[in-house]
């Protein structure tokens, strides 16, 4: 209440900041910028769109449903999974060469890997090879945390529900079925393989898993997933890594194998093929569908017609809009300027 500042001047500082006179760029949506801008954007989008559309058109995709829900499918015998180790074979033919490298995907529909509870039901520390989490898995893994007090490794719904159909591809040449080599290396993310998932630093690997039990749905232990390649076991098994990377949407496909080796480095030649499916993964309970996809890719990835069309549409709309704006501008603005 007592003011004793009479001596010093209270005059505020004269700076551009305090006086709100900072130099500033004041853009205006003038016709000179907006209309040419729209034309440019439109043309650019049309250009990109055409490029994308053409690229996408060159990509070949072969997609086959093998769920077996309808009786006509060769896999319908396995649909109800009456017997374990059910095997079915699908035959198909390719009319023209699918240029390589060809990627072999499996797909699931109506499968909710993006469910929140599903997503959190895992133990990233365990998967990072932290053996302390072997003994006591993360509680979010429940109900796949313990089986009668023995910890499950890898725990949780994601790991438990790992896709376990396996495929073998044969090319039918003159009545003979020649196996097409499938390459399962490097199908997972680099960071997943090298950083995120680590086997515990124990040799032999099996010792790390003493006192644990495999997930209830699994038929093999995690350290013996790949019988052909010893290094492809444990948490860094490629198929496991692929499965553990959750899909964003309920209809998804995941990379199964690459077809790059030997005669097939140039692609899948035309001809008849048969796909032998070890049908283990039940989807009838929730009405899901299973499929396999063979596809090649371009610089911008797999077949993606939507992107090209969307670019074309937006580009055209921009150009149309610029014309509309020009008309409006000419009609309403010019007289006023005069």
């Amino acid at each position, binding site marked *: 209440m007592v003011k004793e500042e009479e001596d010093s001047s209270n005059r505020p500082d004269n700076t551009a900041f305090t006086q709100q006179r900072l130099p500033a760029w004041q853009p205006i949506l003038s016709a000179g910028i907006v209309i040419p801008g729209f034309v440019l954007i439109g043309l650019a989008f049309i250009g990109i769109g055409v490029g994308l559309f053409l690229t996408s058109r060159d990509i070949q995709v072969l997609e086959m449903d093998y769920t077996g829900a309808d009786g006509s499918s060769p896999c319908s015998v396995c649909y109800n999974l009456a017997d374990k180790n059910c095997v079915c074979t699908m035959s198909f033919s390719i009319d023209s060469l699918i240029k390589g490298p060809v990627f072999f995907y499996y797909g699931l529909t109506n499968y909710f890997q993006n*469910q929140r509870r599903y997503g959190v039901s895992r133990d990233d520390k365990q998967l990072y090879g932290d053996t302390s989490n072997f003994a006591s898995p993360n509680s979010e893994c429940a109900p796949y945390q313990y089986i009668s007090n023995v910890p499950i490794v890898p725990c949780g719904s994601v790991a438990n529900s790992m896709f376990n159909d396996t495929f073998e591809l044969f090319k039918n040449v003159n009545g003979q079925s020649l196996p097409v080599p499938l390459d399962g290396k490097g199908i997972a993310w680099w960071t997943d393989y090298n950083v995120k998932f680590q086997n515990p630093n124990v040799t032999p690997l099996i010792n790390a898993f003493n006192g644990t039990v495999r997930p209830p749905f699994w038929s093999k232990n995690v350290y013996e997933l790949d019988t052909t390649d010893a290094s492809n076991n444990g948490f860094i098994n490629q198929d496991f890594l692929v499965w553990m990377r959750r899909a*964003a949407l309920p209809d*998804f496909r995941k990379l199964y194998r690459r077809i790059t080796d030997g005669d097939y480095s140039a692609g899948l030649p035309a001809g008849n093929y048969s796909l032998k499916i070890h049908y283990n993964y039940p989807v009838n309970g929730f009405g899901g569908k299973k499929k396999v996809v063979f596809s090649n890719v371009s610089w911008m990835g797999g077949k993606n017609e939507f992107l090209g069309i969307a670019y074309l549409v937006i580009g055209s709309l921009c150009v149309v809009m610029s014309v509309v704006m020009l008309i409006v501008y000419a009609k309403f603005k010019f007289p006023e300027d005069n």
Partner: protein
Amino acid sequence: MLSRPSLLLCEKKKEERKVKANDREYNEKFQYASNCIMTSKYNMLTFLPVNLFEQFQEVANTYFLFLLILQLIPQISSLSWFTTIVPLALVLSITAVKDATDDYFRHRSDNQVNNHQSQVLIRGSLQKERWMNVRVGDIIKLENNQSVVADLLLLSSSEPHGLCYIETAELDGETNVKVRQSVSVPAELGDPNNLATFNGEVVCEPPNNKLDRFCGTLYWRDKKYPLTNQNMLLRGCVLRNTEACYGLVIFAGPDTKLMQNSGRTKFKRTSIDRLMNTLVLWIFGFLVCMGVILAVGNAVWEKEVGSLFQSYLPWDPPVDNFLFSAFLSFWSYVIILNTVVPISLYVSVEVIRLGHSYFINWDRQMFCSQCNTAAEARTTTLNEELGQVEYVFSDKTGTLTQNIMSFNKCSINGQAYGKGTSREKNTLDFTPFNPLANPDFCFYDEKLLESVKVGDWHSHEYFRLLSLCHTVMSEEKSEGELVYKAQSPDEGALVKAARNFGFVFRSRTPGTITTTELGRTVTYSLLAILDFNNIRKRMSVIVRNPAGRIRLYCKGADTVLLERLHPCNQELMTITSDHLNEYAADGLRTLALAYRDVSEEEWEVWSESHRSADKAVDCREDRLAAAYDKIEQDMMLLGATAIEDKLQEGVSETIALLSLANIKVWVLTGDKQETAVNIGYSCKMLTDDMMEVFTISGRTVQSVRQELGSASFPGNGFREGQEGDGVAGDDQLQGSPCPLPPTYLMDNISGEFGLIINGHSLAHALEADMEVEFVSTACACKAVICCRVTPLQKAQVVELIKKHKKAVTLAIGDGANDVSMIKSAHIGVGISGQEGIQAVLASDYSFAQFRFLQRLLLVHGRWSYLRMCRFLCYFFYKNFAFTMVHFWFGFFCGFSAQTVYDQFFITLYNIVYTSLPVLAMGIFDQDVPDHRSLECPKLYEPGQLNLLFNKKEFFICIAQGIYTSVVLFFMPYAVLSNATQSTGVPLADYQTFAATTATALVIVVSVQIALDTGFWTVINHVFVWGSLGLYFTIMLALHSQTLFRIFPKQFHFVGCAQSTLLQPVVWLTIALATAICIVPVLAFRFLKLDLKPQLSDTVRTHLRKPAESRLGARGGSRSGYAFAHQEGFGELITSGKNMRLSSLGLASFASRHSSSWIETLRRKNTPPKEPCSSFL
């Protein structure tokens, strides 16, 4: 006199306070508050708990706390707890820092006050003691110009009769000097020795906040002495004109009346605040709806799909059916969708307002160099409302006028002198002629000085009268350095004028007046003061000059005085009347002066009759008046004075500008109608362009109703097809009792009428049955002047407009009488740098000059409003765009409350990635430069009509946000679901999807803020680009291996950023989404600019082109006094003679009151033998 009944009242009460002088032990028993003042709220220890407790009383904070608790329940928690706690902690700590800073300054000012030195009488000797150590019951010595330490009972004073003079500006805003008197008996306790042994006991009322009331009893030496407010010196007063005095501390510290009065002011909210709260409630409703929809979805999904999917994803143990799952899902969605009402909204709004407040404080164009006062935003929460003001209620004195009276013109013996304040002429230089002259005094006519020099008898007598007939107190610090303490500025001006013309009032005693007349010291014995009152409208003194002749000098209102002249004055009277009319027409305040010689016998007779009248028990006032009347007869006219009530600088320009901005200015003044009307003309509120100026001055309900009726019936005068500038307030006029004019006609005539209403009429007009009529009439008028209104009525008028017009009101004033109005208006503005600080303390904004109002409203207010609206629009937009993506995703993830984004992104989106650019826009944005908004006041209109942010705008923002969220979800959905990397790895994994959507979102909202920002300063650039850069940096950091290795669980997005951002498809998706979001906005804005441009757009586009000057009046100010308009105006004033009424002293009735009280006091307390009372 008042004391006895009130004392009885006090005694009835149980509670009472007992204070014994010089007896600390006794007083300590009662544990009275010490004199230590604590306005601070916290100390080191209590800060955290108390501040947190206060903050959690805010609904928003509690809501977020509730969310936090929800998040700790694992089955519900769809988001980690830190997504809420980080922003919440940030918000709480920002507020805490602000509170702590405020409190620190309060601590500092408390310390400053508490450590002032005072002199306390302890064990018979005076000791220096800090204020805070003063206790109840101590005896304090005060010296001249010292502030009063606590509420004191005045025990003795160095002045005669135990009188002492105080200034109460800090308490009630009145600067006039008031008188207090010590209790009758201890007055003999002159010296400290006697006081040291004084052991009286005071029994009085408990502490209260009534400034004008005190009752108690002093018990001393077995006697009772009643105590009243007139014996009290209250804390906050300043001792004036009194060498020293002693007082007994009755109330100390928080018990003092000053502190008891410093109650918290009413918390004001802006209309944007209220709208925001409504919208936030709607958003909550919206949130609940979304939650319900998704919960229903969840129920359906769990029943149809989830239950079948249980083999892969069993239900959590507590969940046993889909309904319970849906219930949990509802709360989960409440958590993830809560970002539609982000925590940071309120804090950001506060930060922006704080920024705007600083800009107001820093504005050099609102700095007054004369009083070295910068504008101050005392409330930092109302800025945007400054851009929406429709009604300005202004006080007159001290606000429109400077409250400086200058002796401008005079008429002496039929000769008019003075040429007004013209700039060409040099002011008279008095110094060679008169060493005692005050150099500040300006007069522009050397003829008058000549006539004094040549010894013109009338001139001498004229100034002699001015130097004798007044109640001014003088203080002479050193020889010739005279300071006058006038109780009204008019009187001060007159005495000062006399001083400069050689008749210097030097000093007065109760019985004498000493003057220096043309260098010769003369002492007059003062025989009587025939005091001023409102009925008499004059005052006289009867003096005996050294030669022994008795003369009566009288000054007063011409209407009163001219009737009392000797008939021989007829001719002079006519000439003087003409002069008086002339002065009145110039808006000057006039007084007539006269004298009368009184013979010794006549004096004897009269003084006897006066004495008997004075002693009369009944009808004393009447009998005194009759006695005064008897001697104030047959006077000889000397002349007239004309005093200019100086307008503040730039007042008329400001009012003109405000009215061009469609702001209605009402003047509410305690002054008389004539004065108020004159000021109304001189500041161009009333103009001769006006069709008619209605005057409502009826004293009865019927007459007021009749006058109102005729005023609201505009008759046949208005012209149709005029440019109607009033758009606001059209439908409000529906309630008008006037059946004739449709609303648009009322709008048209709004520029054409003025209304003047008197206080006593206003009292009727404010009654419930007439107020609608009054409001509709008054609002149809361009200018409204309410005169003779009480402080309470001022507040009532403001409340009335608030109630009926739903418009934003601003009240501006400088004095204690404006406090109620300032508090009740939406925005209160105090004029600082002058007398009392009461108005400033109650105000929200303060500055030194009325003219700064235009800058405050048209520049700062307008910008604040614009910025706040743009900020809010964008803020709601960006949060809807952000949050609604979760909603769409819900349909694809089994309504499981799975977030689309990484939880860190959710945590940081509002507080890091998108907060700074919008804050920069909210603080720095300008659509047009400041001088443009002053040149083109129409730019103010969108604020008044609330066009920039209202419910419609809100829905547009929301719609845009939802549209953006749709694009942001479905574009990645459509593109990524089948896309793969060039290595064949599908892109449709959750993490890539999350990163793509998040990046697209950040880019889209950044582009949008870039579009919204109209004023790109360096800071905007840094913030916009910086935020984008920061987003990518933080994203890469969060997805880095280093962090993952330390916290594998939290940072499980490892490698996602690199993987995603290297994909051309991802960038193509982002570009596509951005284009789809932004292109329609751009096109829409461009078309709107062309088809329906706003005024600000036009101004902005044509920055180079000189704007048409809408202000004819800008440039040189006309000679202030607008009575050139008199021809149209004259017949409106009821009688011409009223115009010439004196207004001496009416500006402060209270001062008159207290000056008469001096006389009363003397009469009561001095034995009759004393000369000063011999004739009273």
